[in-house]
């Protein structure tokens, strides 16, 4: 909009033509449009078909920071980490063909985990489309099912409009990834430039209207509930509804449990917070889904890792589902009352209608079940006195030493579950993990993005040895761009979660799960990143202190118990109430 005034206009061009609008290349229009959307950081990798855009970027280095990643997948996960920590839209660049296909995993991950991201890909010239030209791939077709929206732009004059729409769609409603594919001829062609932000698309209603009769119905259910129960999902964080959620919980004394992606919406030490849901969540919040009489599910989608056997899940409860995406309502669990709305709006309305209440006995049930888990599992995991190092004690120390205030970025598997269970989150948007997709290799690049998005925060990536080796080349990015992330590898020389399943469900037939690993500290050293390897319990505390005291990136490898299992556990597809403590 007005931004064009603050940008350096190429003077000679502006003078030559009497038009009020500057005439610039499509590539320059891309960069100016991004700046108009407030973009200050781009993660990307150049290549043939996107070179004109990179050339335009060269003139704007003072306004846009481009982070050269080592693989395009890393660009997407970094953009995700950036978006999840900062709340802004993450941006990634890639060239056509293999550059574009390398974005696929990150796009799918962002789509599943509702992450606002705009990917811009270069494409062969429009005249070559469909001819199997060098590095041509049908990225629009490939990414159609894994993007919230995508578009191919073949004319330079359409670039600002496409980018405006992309950002509007990525960040509005239920956020998600968007891909804009720009052909080379559109990048080099010139056009008049004017940026008009998108505020409306006639076929798209991102913010549904809250039905007040549904709010009244929901409030009536809550007011008459003996055992009400709040399930906190990612939607709470996405809509910034943490305060409203906690106010509602406090007013009617309702226990709150979190999904994996909802973690950090409620401080772990809140008296009404009862823990994490799901396959490796806490005992009390899982087992008591069988007891509650009213469930208030906020911004969550009843993933199968949360529900276990759907037919028995919250079977004795009335279900109130607060959800911005209509397609999620009644998809898995039938809602007795659906509040199709933004979580914040719905919770604000609900807060007015819900009466103060006390549920002492109900809350006591959680404490009793929680004690059972603590005695049987947590105590020995968190405070072992002998034997090999446990993942949980490492996470506990990191949590204590960062006061629960770091941004915790986790990968996928045992270490992820342990870190999610034992890190004591204090502030919203400090949990970044790959939930829906379960993408191994997510966390190293995501941590880079998170650090770029919130440089004032300590960012700690907790990574398994298997996951680390999927994207470890991003150590190069961390070194080159001086990104101060702390990397903790919990090394059990196994693909631990798969091994755990093999132990429990495949008769200990450890098929292709044992890893013969390299020297991770040496690898870090190769990238000029300091590091240390710890194998003994007495060394771990000082090593974490050293890591946190280091200015800049640091890699800490911790050798942990080889055949440790994560408990509690709900075997896949079984009722949640069959949760096992050992």
């Amino acid at each position, binding site marked *: 909009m007005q931004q064009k005034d603050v940008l350096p206009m190429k003077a000679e061009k502006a003078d030559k033509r009497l038009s009020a609008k500057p005439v610039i290349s499509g590539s320059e229009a891309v960069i100016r449009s991004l700046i108009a959307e407030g973009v200050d950081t781009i993660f990307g990798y150049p290549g043939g078909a996107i070179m004109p855009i990179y050339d335009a970027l060269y003139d704007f280095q003072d306004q846009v920071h481009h982070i050269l990643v080592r693989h395009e997948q890393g660009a997407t996960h970094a953009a995700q980490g950036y978006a999840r920590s900062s709340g802004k839209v993450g941006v990634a660049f890639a060239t056509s063909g293999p550059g574009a296909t390398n974005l696929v995993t990150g796009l799918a991950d962002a789509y599943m985990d509702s992450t606002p991201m705009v990917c811009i890909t270069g494409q062969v010239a429009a005249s070559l489309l469909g001819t199997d030209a060098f590095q041509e791939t049908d990225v629009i077709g490939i990414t159609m099912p894994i993007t919230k929206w995508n578009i191919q732009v073949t004319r330079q004059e359409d670039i600002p409009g496409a980018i405006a729409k992309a950002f509007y769609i990525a960040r509005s409603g239920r956020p998600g990834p968007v891909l804009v594919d720009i052909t080379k001829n559109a990048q080099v062609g010139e056009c008049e430039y004017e940026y008009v932000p998108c505020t409306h*698309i*006639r076929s798209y209603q991102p913010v549904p209207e809250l039905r007040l009769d549904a709010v009244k119905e929901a409030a009536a259910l809550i007011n008459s509930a003996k055992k009400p129960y709040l399930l906190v999902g990612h939607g709470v964080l996405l809509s910034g509804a943490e305060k409203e959620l906690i106010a509602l919980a406090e007013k009617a004394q309702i226990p709150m449990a979190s999904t994996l992606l909802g973690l950090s919406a409620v401080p772990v030490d809140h008296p009404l917070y009862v823990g994490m849901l799901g396959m490796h969540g806490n005992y009390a919040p899982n087992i008591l889904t069988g007891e509650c009489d009213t469930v208030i599910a906020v911004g969550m989608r009843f993933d199968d890792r949360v529900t276990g056997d759907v037919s028995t899940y919250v079977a004795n409860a009335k279900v109130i589902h607060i959800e911005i995406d*209509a397609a999620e*309502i009644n998809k898995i669990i039938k809602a007795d009352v659906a509040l199709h709305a933004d979580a914040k709006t719905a919770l604000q309305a609900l807060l007015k209608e819900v009466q103060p209440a006390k549920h002492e006995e109900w809350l006591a049930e959680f404490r009793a079940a929680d004690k059972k888990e603590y005695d049987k599992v947590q105590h020995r995991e968190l405070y072992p006195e002998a034997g090999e190092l446990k993942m949980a004690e490492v996470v506990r120390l990191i949590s204590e030493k960062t006061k629960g205030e770091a941004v915790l970025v986790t990968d996928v598997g045992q270490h992820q579950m342990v870190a999610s269970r034992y890190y004591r989150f204090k502030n919203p948007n400090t949990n970044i993990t790959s939930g829906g997709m379960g993408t191994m290799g997510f966390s190293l690049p995501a941590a880079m993005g998170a650090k770029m998005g919130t440089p004032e925060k300590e960012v700690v990536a907790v990574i398994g040895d298997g996951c680390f080796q999927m994207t470890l080349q991003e150590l190069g990015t961390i070194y080159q761009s001086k990104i101060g992330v702390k990397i903790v590898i919990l090394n059990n020389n196994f693909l631990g979660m798969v091994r755990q399943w093999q132990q429990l469900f495949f008769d200990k037939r450890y098929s292709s799960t044992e890893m013969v690993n390299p020297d991770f500290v040496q690898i870090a050293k190769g990238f000029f990143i300091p590091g240390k390897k710890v194998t003994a319990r007495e060394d771990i505390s000082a090593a974490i202190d050293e890591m946190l005291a280091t200015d800049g990136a640091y890699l800490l490898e911790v050798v942990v118990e080889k055949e440790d299992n994560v408990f509690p556990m709900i075997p896949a597809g079984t009722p949640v109430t069959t949760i096992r403590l050992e």
Partner: protein
Amino acid sequence: MQKEYTVTVYTEDRIGITNRITIIFTRRGINITSLTTAETEIPGVYKFIITVMSTREKLDKVVGQIERLIEIHRAFVHEEEEVVYQELALYKISTKSLDTGDIERLIRENQARILTITADYFVIEKTGHQQELTDFIKKLEPYGLIEYSKSGRVAIIKWSRRFHDHLKELQSSSEA
């Protein structure tokens, strides 16, 4: 229980929109048995009429996921009794069979009509429901059916007035 349903989808005019819609059926393993699409009375708004064999429960979810697409206005599942519909078929018959007296009666009784006649063949057009159109093939077989071609479904939704008002409002607001 599986049965035949009509799904209608109102969309913006956009390259690839068919693909966006059909992959949602594909994901759930639902076969599309016919698909008709054309511009509605509102310029720029297209209507897809899709017939599928599936269950109501599954289709309600599919329609939700279709509606989630940015360029979709609305999508609906209709039971058989909620729509008035027609399909159209063309039948190519050898002209020699005209010598047989019965063809005239057959065309008249089945409310079909002749579209064109050449020295070699003639083309009959008939509208109706799928079953009537395929039954007519059997009746024509003795006359030497050369080719048969049937359209997808065209449907009018019995309760659709309000939605069309909504579309018209959209149109006037985007013109304003």
